[in-house]
């Protein structure tokens, strides 16, 4: 193990270790997946292995043990980091529109598609109609 440590120290500076990490239940990951890792490039707190994400998972596990609900845990993180931490944008305020816009856009697109299913409007020139009728009647007038 000593060689092992030596090698490690060559490769990694982050050697300080506080002890074994806590056990995490599937519930912890389910909640962490809805939270953004504050320091990562577009990863959730469940995916990332950064120190912050690990700490977040530990906190979630602790709060679950204390009997806190999912909503309470989420609001704890919102208090700390703001609503930006939530991967599911709340359906109010400035993020309400991200839920509404797709519907509007789809409705607009739907209206475009609908035009294809309308019956075509056949508009004939009234004079041409008169002429055609006259032609149809023609032979009978001159037997």
């Amino acid at each position, binding site marked *: *193990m000593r060689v092992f440590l030596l090698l490690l120290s060559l490769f990694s500076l982050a050697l300080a270790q506080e002890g*074994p990490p806590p056990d995490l239940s599937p519930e912890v990951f389910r909640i962490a997946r809805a939270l*953004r890792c504050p320091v990562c490039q577009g990863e*959730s707190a469940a995916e990332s292995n950064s120190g912050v994400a690990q700490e977040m998972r530990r906190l979630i596990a602790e709060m679950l043990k204390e009997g806190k609900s999912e909503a309470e845990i989420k609001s704890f993180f919102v208090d700390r980091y703001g609503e*930006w931490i*939530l*991967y599911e*944008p709340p359906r109010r305020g400035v993020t309400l529109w991200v839920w509404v816009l797709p519907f509007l856009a789809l409705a607009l697109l739907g209206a475009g598609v609908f035009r294809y299913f*309308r019956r075509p409007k056949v508009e004939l020139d009234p004079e041409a109609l008169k002429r055609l009728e006259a032609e149809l009647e023609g032979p009978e007038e001159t037997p």
Partner: protein
Amino acid sequence: MTPGLLGGLSLLLSLLVSLAGFVLALLAYLQGDGRFLKGALRAAPLALAFAALAFLALEWALLTHDFTLRYVAQHHSTKDPLWVVLVTPWAALEGSILLWGLLQTLYTYLASRARLDPWRRSLVLATLFGVQVFFFGVMATIANPFEAMPNPPSEGMGPNPLLQNHWMMAVHPVLMYLGFVGLSVPFAHAVAAMLTRRYQTWVAETRWWTLIAWGFLTAGKVAGGWWSYEVLGWGGYWAWDPVENASFIPWLLATAFLHTAFVQEARGRFRVWNLAFVTLAFASTVLGTFLTRSGVIQSVHAFAEGPVGPVFLGFFLLVLALGFGLLSRVGREVGEEGGLRLFSREGALLLGAFFFAGWALVVVLGTLYPLLVEAFTGAKVSVGAPFFNQVSLPLGAGILLLMGVGPLLPWRRAGREVLRNLAVLLLALAVGFLAGLLRGYTLGASLAVGLFLYNLAAVALLTWEGLQARRRAGLSPWGFFGQRRRVGSLVVHLGVALAGLAIAFSQTYRLESEKTLYRGQAWEVAGLRMEFQGVRALDEGRRFAVEALLQTDRFGEVRPRLHFYPQMNAPLAYPRVVYTLGNDYYFVLMDFDREKGEWASLRLIVTPMVLWLWVAGGVVALGTLYILWPEARPRTREAVA
């Protein structure tokens, strides 16, 4: 001659030849002179040759550890294994733009060989050369892969460790670029069609090119998902990351086009939409590059950031302006409202295109929303997987529903004879849904089972009808399987149905937990028992690895690892995945006792049906390949059955 000199020179020559090709092709169109066209045609292989030379020069520099080049010094080290050296050109920005440029010259060359009337041929060439000028211009100015290093180091930094952790990295980017770049050919055809006002004939040729690009895009996405699954250590294959989204959008639009193009070939409708889909698909690949490379959006793909963002944004706007400027004229000249029946093949195809285009729109909105909010209000918001999953569910289900019934409906109007088929489909849907509920699956998963059986029934019915029709006509029924386009699309649909099932189950029933085990301690999760027997250290030269030894009751010894790279201060997880037909068992070593090796912290992720997602990807690829097989290439318009 040094690699840097050769590369720089080749790049410049490729740029000049592309520029010459662009001017000659434009002159050929404007003057109506075949001599100019001949000149432009000659420029295509020449540009390809110089681009290839530039690419080889970069490989040469990497193989000879030429650290006088900035790119080599920053993304290569003498310790890299050979395969990593060979794929290093696309490990970072400048090199990947060079690969993009190389593939662009290849497509331009191939497209220049296709037989077209001289008018459109000149315009197709002019558009493609224009795109080439852009890419080589970018390389010649702000993203030069052959930029010299003032004080060359004696050892380089090596590529991003994430990229050298899995062989899939050799495959995924190339497939993606083949797909992205491939969409420039349909775009060029669309531009040519719009300028020459040939709104009908372009579709048959373009559909073939789009299918090629689409096939590569699909394969690239599956490869990327696989890479993400096996490397990133979070046990998922799709995260709705902005860059994933950016590549999903052109895929959706190309899919929409492939379906509505079929209607235009058969019935001459949707002409404006087809031109719009192709334009948007290509424009969105450029937008995707802008999003990936500019750093405006936080993404796991940020390893390729650079100064090219604004230039790509400008190019994106140029493509849109060109496409939509021309489209506005098409819109005025082509009126095609009304007169379609919903309950017909073309009705189903149009609705399908609505779902694909709508999905693309929703993904664009969700991806750009945080950017827009921040730009206008300064507030930071996140739009992530939970949002995309919720909005995608109805769209995906709608597509799976249409995919079954659409091909069974006849053109123009459906009569009573389809009612029997519809009854069979609905029965399959109901049986699957109820069976799922009885087995205790969630509503969504049960619906997925129902939709899978429904699509299976549709493919079976279509095959049966195809065989019967040939028998009735006195032909050998097996000749049905020679109808590549029809059979290939059935195979693709089968693959998509399977993918739908795999996605629904893997998203619904994922189980993820983490536990610290002491030596000799056992852990039982989801029916799997494992015992931790200690850790082992390995020195692998360019990196240092630590393995946890796990004795499992079903798969023998499993050894998940942590990799320590000298250029990273945090270790990189290297998960071990055991695929079974039902569940995937995904072992990640998270941490271990660095003093005595007494304990290890392990994460186990159990996900159902992930294996089937890769199988589905393979099935789709095979179906696409079957349609594209040279024999089947439509020289003249194929009869539509």
